[in-house]
């Protein structure tokens, strides 16, 4: 067993018992990156020297018997839409290709206090818009299980790096499924936290009312550890929630005894592949045997939800991305005669096609004469969906669905059919629209050998419950690491 194959919790045990050093852990992961990165392409920026220096500092703390946080010395990688002071943050876009933030995102400030080791910045769909990481301006990322396939998106670099052993843990962001869908495709565990539990300060905004930063790992406990480290009220983000946040990792009880699982036909509809359906139902049956009850719940149509999602997300994006205008930072076109020409050429050259489509859609649904029919109606649809989930959770504790309708698709397969690409999000966007937490965990492989993801959705602030259920299932399967591509 190589160190890079272990979970954060296992590595923490080894560190505290001095079976290995932080330097050895970091070296092992850096070695793995060296070995795999060419074929995976998960990273946009690597900071190996900083990583080794940070590991050295942890070893010094260890030597002087200072207490270590569970994440001390753990190699973590960061999605490239999270601002890192002094380290390029590009959002995988040409328009931010040279942007070096003079500040850290709040999650980075929080992680700085844990003494974790930063490996670098991860590839993603440009501005987190996409489901395959193919819209990155810089490079494609390949699914570690089969490099002809996409890793999912938009946090494709995050899931691929963790699955391939190129990072022990990673931060991603999830606006419509961007943590869960790549986790499903790569066989990792990914949490989209309750909206407002993780500060968005320093996360380059895609859709402010839907975006959440979340952890990706190879075990439930690891994901809980990282979530505990980044959650909490932040004075800099008024949408972050003030409440008591427990130590989630410590409080995990791997059990579903007495839990009621809700299933909705809407989420097993015709778009969902038979292999995925049967893998998810097998998981449900396994949990039933562990003492869970299963009921059926009624949820709004996924088509309607997807429509509301694309309207709200694009509307906010069109406004959030207006600041990239070549004036204060980022790319500026080379030749221009007027202000408008500078704006238009900068933005047309700086943004990729998918981002342009979202900006245009968002502009359209907000524009005079269309606002009521699209944006406002979508916001009222959102209220209706939130109400429907409140009702559903009055009869169950959590809802299980497939994370994605199918397993990973081939690179290039969907890139020219946007609507088909958007259908990848049909099972995940609801969670963002409703502001709920959801966890994606592996639940099998399809006949092509690609992982299948199971989505567990809970009511607001029920992350603890999701961890318990997922940990129970994890025990049944003998750990989730087997779904990663660590060999």
């Amino acid at each position: 067993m190589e160190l890079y194959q272990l979970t954060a919790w296992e590595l923490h045990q080894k560190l505290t018992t001095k079976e290995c050093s932080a330097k050895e852990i970091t070296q092992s992961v850096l070695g793995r990156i060296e070995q795999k990165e060419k074929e995976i392409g998960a990273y946009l920026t690597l900071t190996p020297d900083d990583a080794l220096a940070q590991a050295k500092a942890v070893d010094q703390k260890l030597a002087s018997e200072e207490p270590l946080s569970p994440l001390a010395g753990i190699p973590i990688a960061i999605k490239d839409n999270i601002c890192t002071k002094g380290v390029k943050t590009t959002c995988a876009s040409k328009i931010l290709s040279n942007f070096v933030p003079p500040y850290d995102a709040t999650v980075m400030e929080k992680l700085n206090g844990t003494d974790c080791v930063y490996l670098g910045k991860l590839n993603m769909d440009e501005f987190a818009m996409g489901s395959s990481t193919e819209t990155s301006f810089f490079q494609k990322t390949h699914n570690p299980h089969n490099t002809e396939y996409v890793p999912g998106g938009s946090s494709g670099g995050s899931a691929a790096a963790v699955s391939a052993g190129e990072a022990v843990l990673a931060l991603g962001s999830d606006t419509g499924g961007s943590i869960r869908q790549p986790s499903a495709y790569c066989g990792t565990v990914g949490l989209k936290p309750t909206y407002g539990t993780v500060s968005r300060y320093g996360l380059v905004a895609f859709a402010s009312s839907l975006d959440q930063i979340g952890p990706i790992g190879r075990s439930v406990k690891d994901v809980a550890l990282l979530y505990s480290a980044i959650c909490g009220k932040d004075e800099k983000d008024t949408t972050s929630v003030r409440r008591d946040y427990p130590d989630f990792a410590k409080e995990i009880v791997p059990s579903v005894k007495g839990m009621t699982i809700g299933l909705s036909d809407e989420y097993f509809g015709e778009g969902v592949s038979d292999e995925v359906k049967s893998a998810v139902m097998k998981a449900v049956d396994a949990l039933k045997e562990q003492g869970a009850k299963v009921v059926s719940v009624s949820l709004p149509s996924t088509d309607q939800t997807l429509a509301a999602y694309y309207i709200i997300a694009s509307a906010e994006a069109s406004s959030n991305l207006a600041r990239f205008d070549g004036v204060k930072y980022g790319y500026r076109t080379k030749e221009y005669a007027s202000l408008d020409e500078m704006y238009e050429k900068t933005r047309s050259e700086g943004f990729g096609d998918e981002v342009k489509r979202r900006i245009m859609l968002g502009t359209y649904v907000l524009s005079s004469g269309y606002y009521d029919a699209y944006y406002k109606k979508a916001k009222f649809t959102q209220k209706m969906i939130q109400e429907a989930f409140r009702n559903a959770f009055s009869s169950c504790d959590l809802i299980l669905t497939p994370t994605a309708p199918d397993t990973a698709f081939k690179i290039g397969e969907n890139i020219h059919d946007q609507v088909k690409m958007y259908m990848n999000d049909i099972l995940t966007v609801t969670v963002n629209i409703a502001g709920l937490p959801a966890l994606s965990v592996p639940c099998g492989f399809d006949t092509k050998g690609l992982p299948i993801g199971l989505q567990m959705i809970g009511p607001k602030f029920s992350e603890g419950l999701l961890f318990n259920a997922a940990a129970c299932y994890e025990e049944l399967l003998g750990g989730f690491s087997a779904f990663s591509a660590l060999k």
Partner: protein
Amino acid sequence: MSKEYVTVIGLEVHAELNTQSKIYCSCKNSFGAEVNTQCCPVCMGMPGTLPTLNEQVVASAVKMGYALNCTINPVSKQDRKNYFYPDLPKAYQISQFDIPLCENGYVDIWVDGKEKRIGVTRIHIEEDAGKLIHDNSFAGSLVDFNRCGVPLIEIVSEPDLRSSKEAKAYLDTIKAIVQYIDVSDAKMQEGSIRCDINVSVMEKGSDTFGTRVEMKNVNTFSGAVRAIEYEAARQIAVLEQGGTIEQETRRWDDQKGQNFLLRSKEDAHDYRYFPEPDLQTIVLEESYLSQIKDSIPELPNKKFVRYLADYDLPEDDASLLVASVEKSAFFETLVAFGDVKPKSISNWILGDISRIMNETGKSLDELEIDAKALDALLLMIDQKKISNSAGKTVFEEMLKTKASPEEIVKEKGLLQISDTDALQEIVDQILAANQKSVDDYRNGKTNALGFLVGQCMKASKGKGNPAMMKEMLLSYLENQ
């Protein structure tokens, strides 16, 4: 001109609030700093940054809302107004669209000797933009972000104003009120109060407004008067020539005294307002609101009318007094003693006291004037126990030593001489010594009288009753 027209005016006043920090970040809210030194990633719109609303901005806006008799919305929100411009780093301005903090108010203004009520549609909060610096020596424009995020309130009036004079009175009243309740410095030269103007004209007797034209870039109140008069004349000329007024935005050029088309209705911006997702709902508790409501003092426009009615002051005196919170409060304290005529008190406050305040740069409070002592002094002058000029000497001494006026008068022997014989003696002496002035007066140079009175006052060491001595001089000059 064959027809008579009425000008209809609505005003949108922007006032920068005098808070410590900016509206959405902790940068200092200050004027005149070196370029781009009062900025941070938030007000420069850097990726990933988020706004946090300054509580004082809400408090100041609500205060202004109560001052203008508005309904305060206990639940309101902020919205994004989207447009590209280099002085707007996020490419949207955070403002309030359909639910402003304050709505449906009014303000009474004083025009042509009577009050007129002007409706206030709404007051909302928003962020100011940065500044563009144009320098002809250079091919581009420079952007200074210091002003980005300076808090603004926008006060929108109903189209209730009917002349440039009314508009000026409205603007002066709004300015006096924001200063009085201390929410804005309202310094025109710093651009901390500015306005956009909507003008239309209609035929006299009509009750249908004409098409309105919006004018931007009006930076002074006197400029507003010129801009309104110009635009009304322009519209009337168009109508008289059989043309129609287009709904458009025009830019006022105060130097040229003309306005120019900025954009037509077809080019009007589509701002794509939508609720600001980075900020949550502004919810104001009833107790919070009533606390602010109770803190609103009597406002200058109402005080003004009361001073005219209750104290019979001239309009000039009343407006100068009410323009200052301190002076009007001090005035009212002295009036309340009931010893001295309000006009005499006003003369003192607007005369010597204001002069000393100007000279020393001190506020009334810092001058530490004992109101009761000043009242005693004014009473002595009123009762002619001392002369007005002796009063000034006493007052200066009071400021220096804090001694009572009675003590100072006694010590300096300033009691006024009203004894006819003693005064006649002085008058005779002066007349004898100034034959040239006597001749001058008799040759029609009547201002020689002033000189002679002055000489008599000097000879009496300021103690002679000037009115009596003047009488005596006159009787000699006119009769002998």
